C-alpha cells in the first residue's frame, strides 16, 4: 500500500490535469481546481516542514559537535531572531519601519546580494584561467562572448561609434540574441519538452517509480 497509494494519486492527478487542458469543463475543471488548491496547501506545509527540518538537522549538528557546528548555531540564532521579530510585529510585521523590516533591509538584503556579487569575481578569475581559444568552436564562443559583453553595455557603442548605424556593437549583440542564440534555445527547448512528455507519461502510468524513493 505504501507504494500503490502514491502511484494511484499521481496517476489520477496527472490524467486529470492533461484532460482538463483540452476539456476545460465540468467535471474536469472542478477537479483541476480542487487538485490545484491541494497542491498549494501541500506546498505551504512543505515550507514549514523544511524550516523545522533545518532546525532539527542544525540542532543535531551542534549536539554531536560535527564539523562546522558553529555555523549551525548561527542558523538557529538568526532563524529565531527573524521569527521573534516577525511574530512580535503582528500582521503588519513587514511594514516599513518594523524591526523585521530593518533586519530584512540591513542584514538579509546585503548578505544575499554579497553572495551573488561574489560570482563576478569568480567568473572573472575562471575566464582568465580557462576561457581559451583552443579550437575553432572555442574561438567562435570567445568571439561571441566578447561581442555580447561589449554590446550589452553602453561602452560597446562608444568603441564602435565610427561604424554606421545598424553595424555597431549593440546591433551585433541584438542580432546574436535574436537569431543564432534564439535558434539554439529553441532546439534545446524542444528537446527538453520531448523528454518531459516522455518522463511525465512514464510517471503517470506508474512505469517510472524512482521519485517514490526506496529500492
Amino acid at each position: 500500500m505504501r507504494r500503490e497509494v502514491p502511484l494511484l494519486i499521481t496517476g489520477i492527478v496527472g490524467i486529470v490535469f492533461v484532460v482538463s487542458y483540452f476539456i476545460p469543463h465540468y467535471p474536469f475543471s472542478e477537479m483541476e481546481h480542487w487538485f490545484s488548491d491541494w497542491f498549494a496547501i501541500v506546498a505551504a506545509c512543505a515550507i514549514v516542514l523544511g524550516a523545522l527540518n533545518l532546525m532539527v538537522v542544525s540542532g543535531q549538528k551542534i549536539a554531536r559537535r560535527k564539523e562546522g557546528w558553529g555555523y549551525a548555531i548561527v542558523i538557529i540564532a538568526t532563524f529565531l531572531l527573524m521569527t521573534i521579530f516577525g511574530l512580535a510585529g503582528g500582521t503588519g510585521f513587514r511594514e516599513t519601519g518594523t524591526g523585521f523590516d530593518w533586519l530584512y533591509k540591513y542584514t538579509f538584503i546585503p548578505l544575499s546580494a554579497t553572495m551573488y556579487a561574489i560570482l563576478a569575481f569568480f567568473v572573472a578569475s575562471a575566464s582568465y584561467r580557462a576561457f581559451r581559444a583552443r579550437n575553432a568552436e572555442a574561438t567562435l564562443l570567445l568571439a561571441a562572448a566578447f561581442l555580447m559583453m561589449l554590446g550589452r553595455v553602453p561602452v560597446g557603442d562608444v568603441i564602435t561609434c565610427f561604424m554606421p548605424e545598424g553595424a555597431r556593437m549593440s546591433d551585433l549583440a541584438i542580432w546574436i540574441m535574436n537569431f543564432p542564440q534564439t535558434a539554439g534555445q529553441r532546439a534545446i527547448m524542444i528537446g527538453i519538452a520531448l523528454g518531459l512528455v516522455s518522463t511525465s507519461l512514464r510517471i503517470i502510468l506508474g512505469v517510472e517509480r524512482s521519485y517514490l524513493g526506496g529500492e
Partner: protein
Amino acid sequence: MKTRMVEILVVILIAVLAVVAYLGKIWGWHEGFVFSTSVSLAVVILIFASLIWILVRTLMDKLVGRRIVFLYVGIAITLPLFMSIEQEIVISDEVQAIYDELEQLQPGSKVLVSLDYDPASAPELQPMAEAFFGECFKRDLKLIIMGLWPMGPQQANQAIDTIMARMGLDSTDVIYGEDYVNLGFQAGNEFVIQRMGSSFEAMFGTDYRGTPYQDLPLVRNVNNFSNIDFSYNISAGFPGTVEWVQIAVDRFGLRLAAGNTAVQAPTVYPYLRAGQLVGLMGGMSGGAEFEKLTHLEGKATTYMLSQSFSHIIVIGFIIIGNVAFFRSGRKSGLKE
C-alpha cells in the same frame, strides 16, 4: 603571517567598511564624494595602463595570480560609482515595446505584477521594479502585486517606498487598496498561476496585511486573468517568466512583458520572438533603458558605468590569459 590571521583581518576590515558605509548612507557622506570628469578619465587611463603593463609582463612569462584579477574586478566595480562620466544608453526594441504597451493603456487599467525573485538578484532586478511602478503611478495604472517567491512581495514594498520617495509621492497621492495592492506570496509555483486563471481569490484570500480580498476595492471585481489589462513578471529563475508564458499567456491569453536577470534573459528570447512576450528587460542594461524611457533614472543607470568598466576588465584578462596560453605553446593553463 598565517593564512587564518589574514582571513580574520580581512573579515574585520570588511566589517569596519560595512559600518562606515552604513553610517555614510545615513549621514549622506557619499553625496558629496564624486570625481570630476577629468579625474575620472585620469583614473580610467591609469587602470588601462596598468592592464597593458600586466600584458607586457605576461609576454615576459611573468603571470599574475587570481588575487590580482579579484583586485581589478573590485576596482572596476567600485570606482565608477564615484565617477562622473556620461554614457549614451541605446534603447532596444524589446524595452521600447514595454513602454509603448504602457502608453496605450487607459488610466485606471489593471496591471498585474509578479515579483519572482529574492534579494540575491535585487541589485539587477529591483531598479526594473522601481521604474515600472513609477511609470504606472504616473499613468494612473492600478497595480496588483504578488509573488511566487517568498521574498517577492517584500521586495515590492521596498520598490514602492523607494520610487514614491523619488517621485515625491506620499500615501495620500497613491492610496493602498485603490491604486495598488500587494497580495503577498502564495506557495504552489505554477499551480498558483493555473488556479488564478479561474479565481484570484482562491489563491489570495487576503492581501499581505491580512485584509480580506473582498475588502480591497481595487481587486473586489477582479476574478481572473480576463479582468487584467496587462501584466509584468520580474523573475530570477523558477518559478518565473517561463511558467507565466506557458500557463497564463498560452492558456488564458494574458498580455505579458518580463524583466529577467542577464543570465536568464536568453532563455526567454524564443517567447519574445514568437510574440508570446510583449517585451523584455534583460539584466541591468534593460533596467537602465527603461529608466531612460521613463525619465526615472535610478540605480540601473548609475551602475551601468561599473558594468561597462567591469566587462572591459574581464575581456582584458581573457586576452591576457590567452596570450599566456599561446606563449606556452597551447599547453599550460594558469594554475593558481
